[in-house]
């Protein structure tokens, strides 16, 4: 058993193989991204740091039973028996329309990397994660004309925003008794955004050897946040959880000669969820989150959304449920409240999801090696912007005894 799941194949240990795969994946993938025009005057659109199981079940990252790695549920990892590593990848294909304009986008992202390490002497688990937070990746263009040397010259302006914030967290999850777990975490914002303004003149009209005017600035993000939460199993078939996350000011610091500095207040986020086991093979999950961005400081007037609530629900059915392996299928729905408007309408994001898992090795309450897949069809709207996307999520996790 050990060789099959933790030892390795041939001469390469599994951990080494996964590390190689992760490095290759990181090298081949751009930073986590949410390609959206939402929040173009603020900090962009949120990255949901969820693994494929939570994604497929329409969960908001809280209250899901049998969770190994989570960045949003501080107490979730308390039940880990062995050191566990999980990585989630997320390719997506989007389209949008904005009045007469429309277009498409493609991206890859790594929304969540997480590690849990049980400390048996203390009865708790150390957790660490790197997850996406807010991102702004889009390009806008404008065509116009200027008169130079009595000649009307075509001009194309291009403005590219590329970057966002991530969060690195370190936490502790403690099991208290057989039903209650508590968890805390502290983290720091990371990341940068780069804004590039290109102005290109028609070389034929100007006279030749025309260089593109480029102004390129970058800002780094920094700040701290902390979270606390609990997991409770009041009954063998019921699991509930709750968490609160407090964030200090998110600072946008100019690099080199970039102008301006931003200080953004990130509101407290409260979240709660529950999972009910309806049969040995079927369970239902609901979750909700509250975050009031309306009064946040640092943003332009009218940018933040008045919507405060996000919620989601879903189900998981184990088609095959063996002693040490299982094959669950999942589906769910989420309705989210992105924090920033496009113009004046509060945005709404709704997602239908479907997924499956392959639990390669599991004990009664712990998965030791798994592969989860999720497929989503989502839409965001904040008039006049409408965005739609297909998104896949792959999570791979492994524990080492």
């Amino acid at each position: 058993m050990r060789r099959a799941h933790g030892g390795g194949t041939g001469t390469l240990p599994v951990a080494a193989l996964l590390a190689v795969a992760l490095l290759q994946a990181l090298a081949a993938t751009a930073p986590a991204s949410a390609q959206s025009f939402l929040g173009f005057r603020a900090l962009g659109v949120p990255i949901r740091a969820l693994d494929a199981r939570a994604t497929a079940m329409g969960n908001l990252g809280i209250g899901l039973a049998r969770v190994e790695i989570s960045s949003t549920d501080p107490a979730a990892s308390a039940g880990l028996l062995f050191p566990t590593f999980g990585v989630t990848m997320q390719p997506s294909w989007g389209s949008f329309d904005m009045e007469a304009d429309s277009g498409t986008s493609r991206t890859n992202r790594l929304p969540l990397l997480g590690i849990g390490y049980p400390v048996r002497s203390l009865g708790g688990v150390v957790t660490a994660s790197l997850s996406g937070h807010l991102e702004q990746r889009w390009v806008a263009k404008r065509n116009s004309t200027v008169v130079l040397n009595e000649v009307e010259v075509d001009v194309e302006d291009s403005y590219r925003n590329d970057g966002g914030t991530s969060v690195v967290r370190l936490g502790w999850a403690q099991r208290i008794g057989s039903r209650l777990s508590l968890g805390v975490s502290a983290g720091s914002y990371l990341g940068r955004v780069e804004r590039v303004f290109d102005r290109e003149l028609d070389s034929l009209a100007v006279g030749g050897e025309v260089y593109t005017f480029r102004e390129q600035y970058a800002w780094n993000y920094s700040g701290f946040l902390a979270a606390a939460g609990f997991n409770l199993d009041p009954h063998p078939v019921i699991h509930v959880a709750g968490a609160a996350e407090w964030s200090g000011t998110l600072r946008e610091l100019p690099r080199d000669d970039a102008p301006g500095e931003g200080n953004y207040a990130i509101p407290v986020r409260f979240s709660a969820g529950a999972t009910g086991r309806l049969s040995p093979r079927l369970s239902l999950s609901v979750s909700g989150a509250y975050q009031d961005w309306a009064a946040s400081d640092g943003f332009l007037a009218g940018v933040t959304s008045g919507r405060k609530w996000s919620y989601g629900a879903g189900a998981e059915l184990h088609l095959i449920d063996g002693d040490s392996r299982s094959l669950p299928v999942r589906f769910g729905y989420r309705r989210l409240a992105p924090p920033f408007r496009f113009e004046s309408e509060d945005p709404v994001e709704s997602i239908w999801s479907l997924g499956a898992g392959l639990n390669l090795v599991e004990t009664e309450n712990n998965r030791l090696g798994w592969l989860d897949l999720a497929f989503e069809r989502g839409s965001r709207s904040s008039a006049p912007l409408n965005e739609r996307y297909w998104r896949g999520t792959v999570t791979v996790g492994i524990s080492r005894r």
Partner: protein
Amino acid sequence: MVPRARAPGHVSGNPMTRRTPTTARATQRLAAPVHRRSRCSRGPVLVHGLLLAAAGGCSEALPTVQRGDLVRSGFATEVILEYGEFASGARVYGGYGRPSDLGAGFVAHDFGSRGGGGDGAQVGLEASSLLRFGRYPRSAQVLDTTGANVPDTVLTFLDGQLVMRFDTLSSVHNDRPVEIVAHALTEPWDGTTATWEYAIDSVGHRERWSVPGGGAVEEIGSATWDPETGDSIRIRVDSAWIAAWADTTDYSRGIRVSTSTPDVRLRVIAGVLRIDTRPSVNPDTIVKVPSSTENRTFIYAPVPRPPLKTLRVGGVPAWRTVMDLDVPSVLNGPDELCDVVGCPIEITADHVSYAALRFTTRPGVRSFAPSDTLPLDLRSVLAPDFLPKSPLGPSRSGPFGTLVPGEWFHPPAGEIVELAVTGLVRDLLRGETVDGDPVSNTIAVLSALEPLSVEYVSFDGPTSPAAPTLRIVLNFSLEDGT
């Protein structure tokens, strides 16, 4: 790819290079790792593949929208700097290259003495091509009496034909037939340094022609070139001249090709001597064999004097215009710039989208006025202290230069010629090239191929009201956008 479990003892790979185990022990050693691959052990390999597929499965494409309110505002304007604001020390250097670099060059007679325009008195251009043929062929492939193609090394040279070909586009002939005359030279001359005045004009050795323009000559023959009927003429050369020119130690041998038709200037593309030869293997046949050409040059008069107040480019030997640039990095105008971005405004290399030196054409001496498009080039002078022999940097006008129509230099002229110097101005504002190399602020304007023609072009100089200017297109981004 997920490796498949194989039967014990199975060995994959090239059977020619992989040794098949023959003993039970060897079989066991090879088979053991295969046995260890249980179904679950393939999981990490599968994961590895899925991760890579997910990572590389789709490439990045940012959503792009045509929408002005999402784009930062920009401002473009044009600044014209007067000569004194960006340059100094404009001067003209001559003497680059020599007529022999152009081959047979030109033939002209009293060209440009009529008609207005130009700098000073109009003196007609006289020009002649000088050709010296080399050793005659020692053998030729001929048909013998049996019809076989055989080499013949016993050739009897008879008479010959001088074939001259002209450039029908750049030649100026007023659309009328031109009389071409061939003379035999009788005085020793140097095929590289001969000029209108001197038969030999090399370092430390000068010998004048007895008569300017080729010395004492003897007429060989003449022909009339009608541009409407073709681009070439033939002049018969009798056997006495063919025999005389066989002596390759005689440095006076050669042909002068000129014209007696006034007010024409023809560009000679080629001059070839074809010799009628009687082969020994078939004496009843006449074979034409071409003679090699040892020297090909042209001589002309008058030689243009250096300009006093104008700028000049082209000609042969060629002229170059040189000037020193000092592009200001702080601007206090024009008003439309200051109104938007405020003045004084410091400009950097990034602000310069386009820059061009602007020269105003002048009608030059008609005898040397261009009759065809002239490609101009602009290069950095890498060692200004060593002018006029400083090396030049790479072309800033591309391999074909900036093409300027010849008509722009005909009266009344006054056209603006722009030579793009965007990269140079950006380098000067940056203080170095993009590669970090030093940048010279001295530039030379020259013809893209040098020498290119006897024709040269003139521009208004720095003291003229139409002195060179520098046109700069500047771009700025404004803060009132997103």
